């Protein structure tokens, strides 16, 4: 019995010499893995136009019914996204979302991407509904904000050009 006790204590004393493993969380943040799925971001093209075309496929794919999309028609005077359609309302209920990434898979334009932010705590449920404004990526300069006024006939297709597979 003493032997076992001694062996156990050896482990204990060994550990005493090691540095603590505790991560001092709020001050020190452990980087997340590259494939971690956190808070969503709605991406933009380089010219500032939104990638989201309001197709609702993310909402259809969502197993938790956390996404609500409503779309409207683009005009060249007020262009949000290339093509004819854009999301006039885009809402994600962060408390419903299970961060499965199905929306990311379903998106035909790679507009929605799950980011690295996991610090999502709310003091009421209403705050948990993220609107399009909070989900959209920031733009480097204000003239890239949507809606933009563009030349007619420039952005007529919603889905980026596809290419034939290279043989």
């Amino acid at each position, binding site marked *: 019995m003493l032997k076992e006790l001694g062996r156990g204590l050896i482990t204990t004393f060994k550990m005493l010499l090691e540095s*603590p*493993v*505790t*991560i*001092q*969380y*709020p001050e020190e*943040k*452990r980087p997340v893995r590259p494939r971690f799925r956190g808070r969503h971001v709605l991406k933009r093209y380089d010219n500032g136009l939104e990638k989201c075309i309001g197709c609702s496929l993310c909402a259809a794919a969502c*197993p*938790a*019914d956390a996404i609500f999309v409503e779309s409207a028609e683009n005009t060249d005077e007020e262009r949000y996204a290339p093509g004819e359609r854009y999301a006039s309302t885009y809402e994600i*209920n*962060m*408390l*419903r*979302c*299970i*961060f*499965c990434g199905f929306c990311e898979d379903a998106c035909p334009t790679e507009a929605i991407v799950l980011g690295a932010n*996991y*610090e*999502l*705590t*709310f*003091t*009421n*449920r209403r705050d*948990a509904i993220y609107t399009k404004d909070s989900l959209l990526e920031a733009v480097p300069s204000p003239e890239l904000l949507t809606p933009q006024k563009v030349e007619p006939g420039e952005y007529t297709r919603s889905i980026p050009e596809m290419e034939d597979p290279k043989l």
Partner: protein
Amino acid sequence: MGVEQKLGNMGMVTTTLEQFVNWSRTRAMWPMLFGLACCAIEMMSAQAAHYDMSRFGMELMRASPRQSDLMIVAGRVSRKMGPILRRLYDQMPEPKWVVAMGDCASCGGVFNNYAIHQGVDELVPVDVYVAGCPPRPEALIHGIVTLYEKVNGEKFTDYTDS
């Protein structure tokens, strides 16, 4: 923390009683075990060495509601569990707080069906909701920090009604 002033080198601090009380409450808030599903695993992890919630005064999870101040509801609450949760909450001494950990406890999550309470706020007043399915231990700690901010802002007058 409510350090208003430090008087010379006398080693004294003054503060309001309200702030002092709030400060003391956030320094030893003992959570009650309420692991119901997968979130409980993350809650355990938050309690263990790597995240060590005792850094926030949460020395240990109490199995008894009589000795706890904070209920962390970790997991989906079925209709059958509902009354039990409420009863345990009622058995906790005032002041008491509730954290809804994870999507299911917050609003039902993927389980949008008749068997699951669509959020524990149907049963008890929730102070902080933590999103995630399940939330990382860090997210839970973030929730605890959010709760502390809330507690620090509490006024005595808030209690006058209850």
